[in-house]
């Protein structure tokens, strides 16, 4: 008897201007990862080390946009993923990196690479390989359409699990009291 094998959903993840805390929280779903792996396989992700994203069902983005490379990666995800999820405070509102938005970029670069005490002949790096910083840090929904948001700094593993399992069950994801958090 041949039961048709259900194709696994493809999931890609990335961390842009984030701290990997959201990915750590994702891993914090612990043994439920094994259940998840019955249903999904990972494409581009820090977990697989695949460098570019192929066609995927779900893309999960941690972190906001602080440099040109972040924007390219985000666009690659949007072009390839049917559903794009913003994971965590930085992706959703810029978060901690966006606290620099109140200072001119030149002042920050001067301070970090040049003027700070203890730097001898410091210069601002300008290697062409380095992505150019953006003038301000932006949340990702300001650049591409985002389908779902999981707030939190980081979102709890239970919140991440709830959204993923709702989506996999074909339901609109919903976070109730205790799972929706901005802190």
């Amino acid at each position, binding site marked *: 008897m041949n039961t048709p094998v259900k194709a696994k959903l493809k999931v890609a993840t990335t961390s842009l201007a984030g701290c990997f805390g959201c990915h750590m*929280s994702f891993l914090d779903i612990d043994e439920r990862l094994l259940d998840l792996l019955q249903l999904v396989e990972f494409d581009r992700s820090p977990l697989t080390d695949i460098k570019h994203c192929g066609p995927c069902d779900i893309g999960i983005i941690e972190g906001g946009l602080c440099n040109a490379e972040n924007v390219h990666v985000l666009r690659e995800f949007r072009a390839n993923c049917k559903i794009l999820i*913003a994971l965590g*405070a930085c992706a*959703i*509102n*810029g*978060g*901690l990196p*966006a*606290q620099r*938005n*109140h200072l001119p970029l030149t002042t920050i670069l001067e301070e970090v690479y040049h003027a700070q005490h203890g730097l001898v002949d410091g210069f601002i790096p300008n290697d062409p390989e380095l992505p150019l910083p953006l003038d*301000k840090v*932006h*949340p990702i*929904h*300001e650049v591409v359409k*985002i389908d*779902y*948001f*999981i*707030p*939190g*700094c*980081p*979102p*709890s593993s239970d919140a991440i699990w709830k959204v993923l399992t709702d989506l996999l069950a074909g339901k609109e994801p*919903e*976070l109730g*009291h*205790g799972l*929706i*958090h*901005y*802190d």
Partner: protein
Amino acid sequence: MSQSNTFTLDGKTIPYNEGQTIIQAAMAAGVYIPHLCFNPEFKPHGSCKLCTVKANGRQTASCTQHPAPGMVVESDTIEINDERRALLQMLFVEGNHFCPSCEKSGNCQLQATAYEMKMMSPHFDQFFPDRMLDASHPEYLLDFNRCILCSLCVRASRDVDGKNVFALSGRGIKSHLIVNAKSGRLADTDFSGDDKAAHVCPVGVILKKRVGFTIPIGQRSFDEQPISATPHPQGACPVGPRSNTATLPPHPTVKGG
């Protein structure tokens, strides 16, 4: 209760007394209507519009509108909640609300109301406005980044403390909170921690110093229960660690952010 002094709120019969507003009667009946600039201890200001309801089909602020006999009031509807969420999103992007670093997080009515309205993102583009911090006062600090211009501190200082420490100034998007001193600094006013104005801010602007994260995030008022289940949210916003530990039961688990 005679029919002449009741109205219906989402189909539920609500009794009211002459002089009560819709939100006051609803609160007395234990029904939550989202609100930010309303505080039962003060005259209504009617500015945030979070409390908007449909009364006999017309939108109105329930903190200023008085009910009429048999009035049909709708509040918890998809349409109205969508509008409330949009108002909240505008409040979030107009200021700088970085909740993970805010001492008020978990005790904040703006945040808790946004949870209640299932606000998953700010939706609009962030303004990232440049706003000041005033740490001049020895006991209190002002973080203007989070002011939602509800005027509660203005009303408290003027009407209860008789001091006029705070005022709203400017118009439209330029509206902002000012401190009544030539220097503009809180230290140069007669503001004191005993003032009513020190304890009414629904968000994280007027903050007592050296309290910070004594109660960790995850164990605060609205972590325990949603704002809709908190009869008088203002009472749930503790003013310091002592009153907080005294009123909150011990909580064994630390819910992560």
